[in-house]
């Protein structure tokens, strides 16, 4: 069944979009990532203009994250206090990020920079996670218990706060900084930032993996809602028909994803996420290095 999208001005298969939404929803529920880094390239692939894909992707992430976070709330795997601290940093970061983005846009080459950002961060995050989680898995196979996390520089900072759900007593500065950094990147790369947030929470803040997913989703909702409004009011690129089709698939997928995530071991979950991140990074890197089929491209002129 073909559906004509009023803003994207293309006609696409409705079931394809439902499936795409479902797939990203499952990942969202399993790993606590919004899925923006997956859905945007996939939408390009089926012919949706990039600007519409980025803006509408953000709207779809609001829906699937909201659906998933409710499932996490029922299981008490959301650290609200930590989420709010991260969010304060995140919104400040997003505001800075928008300024940076507009500056880069005026300089041209913003597409390239976004892609390089993706390759760089996905590559580092993916590789680190893969190595670490493989090590952890090997250790747990041998039967030796994972060593207790050492006290690092994070524990030496002032303004300590107790985060009961995470079982942490740390300074508020690191979470604020993590939120800020992710906010900046999120605005530049047009994603929720979950794939950076999740590893940062595990490795820098030392939060337990089970709590990380719900907490990350909680703050992603707000960041992507903010992004959606920004795109809708400045670029007019949010396609509500596209969003509805994606999010019907997405919210259902997110519920299944949460169930799958709860039945898997934390190490397995991390390995899978790492593999996913590394493969997306590899694909983007190849695109930059290999000679494209068409050297010319038409920049869409968005007229209001």
């Amino acid at each position, binding site marked *: 069944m073909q559906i004509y999208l009023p*803003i994207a001005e293309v006609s696409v298969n409705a079931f394809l979009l439902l499936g795409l939404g479902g797939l990203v929803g499952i990942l969202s529920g399993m790993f606590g990532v919004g899925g923006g880094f997956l859905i945007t390239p996939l939408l390009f692939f089926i012919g949706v203009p990039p600007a519409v894909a980025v803006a509408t992707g953000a709207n779809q992430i609001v829906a699937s994250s909201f659906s998933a976070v409710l499932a996490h709330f029922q299981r008490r795997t959301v650290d609200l206090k930590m989420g709010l601290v991260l969010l304060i940093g995140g919104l400040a970061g997003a505001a800075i990020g928008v300024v940076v983005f507009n500056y880069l846009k005026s300089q041209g080459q913003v597409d390239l920079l976004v892609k390089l950002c993706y390759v760089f961060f996905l590559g580092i995050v993916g590789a680190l996670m893969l190595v670490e989680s493989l090590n952890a898995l090997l250790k747990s196979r041998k039967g030796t218990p994972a060593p207790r996390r050492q006290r690092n520089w994070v524990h030496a900072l002032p303004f300590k706060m107790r985060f009961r759900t995470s079982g942490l007593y740390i300074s508020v500065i690191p979470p604020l900084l993590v939120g800020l950094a992710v906010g900046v990147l999120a605005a530049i790369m047009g994603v929720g930032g979950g794939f950076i947030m999740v590893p940062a929470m595990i490795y820098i803040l030392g939060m337990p993996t089970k709590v990380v997913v719900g907490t990350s989703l909680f703050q992603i909702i707000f960041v992507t809602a903010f992004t959606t409004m920004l795109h809708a009011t400045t670029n007019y690129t949010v396609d509500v028909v596209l969003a509805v089709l994606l*999010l019907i698939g997405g919210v259902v997928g997110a519920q299944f994803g949460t169930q799958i995530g709860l039945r898997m071991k934390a190490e397995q979950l991390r390995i899978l996420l790492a593999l996913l991140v590394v493969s997306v990074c590899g694909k983007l890197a190849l695109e930059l290095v290999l000679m*494209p089929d068409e*050297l010319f491209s038409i920049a869409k002129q968005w007229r209001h």
Partner: protein
Amino acid sequence: MRSLLVALLLFALPAQAAEEEVVLGLSQDRVAITANFDGSEILIFGAVKRETPIPDADQIQVVVTISGPGRPVLVRRKEKKFGIWINVDSVLVDSAPSFYAIATSAPLDQVLTDTEDLRYRISIKRAIRSVGAAMHIREAQDFADAVVRIRKSEHLYSVRENTVAVDQQTLFRTAIEMPSNLTEGTYTARIFLTRSGRVISHYETPIEVRKVGLERFLFTMSRERPFLYGLMSLAIAISAGWGASAAFRLLRNR
């Protein structure tokens, strides 16, 4: 003085060419883009009206074009720098139609001379205007060619030679398919009658391509009330997320 002469010549031309004229019919003069729009086919048919017997000269040939509204297009070119492919330069093509289809009754180079093509801007190459587009870039023509190549691959531009059927040098008909990735605007259908490569008569008629119903409503809202539109998108997202969560809880508790 010279311009007056040109004007006089222009006025004189139609009178001379009026011996054979186009009488046109269209299967539809408007295309409605609805929610399940999946492309459209326009049937163009007509007859050649003449007061005098059919001339003994070459066979009459028919060229039909449909073009979308012309818009400036920014074309970028990639080049390999530091091991990766990046955009190095761009050219603003003054005006390129969003859609362009030509149907002819014989190969295009046989039905039309270059001069006539230049005058009426019939072939795709001529329909794209890039006069004065960054003359300092030597390969400006490459950029215009790229527009044609890219749009052809998106089925937006097409040349359909030998697809106009002409009967008894009088009746003609053709069908032009319009793809599903159509944009809104006033399209123009043009019909040219040619003999020995010269245009002897032409006719022009608009075809309105418009979004209707829900498509129209959403598009207008997104442009005129963007804030409300954004809030609506978020409200839909949140309620869908909540709805799915509630539905799953019900399913699990049963």
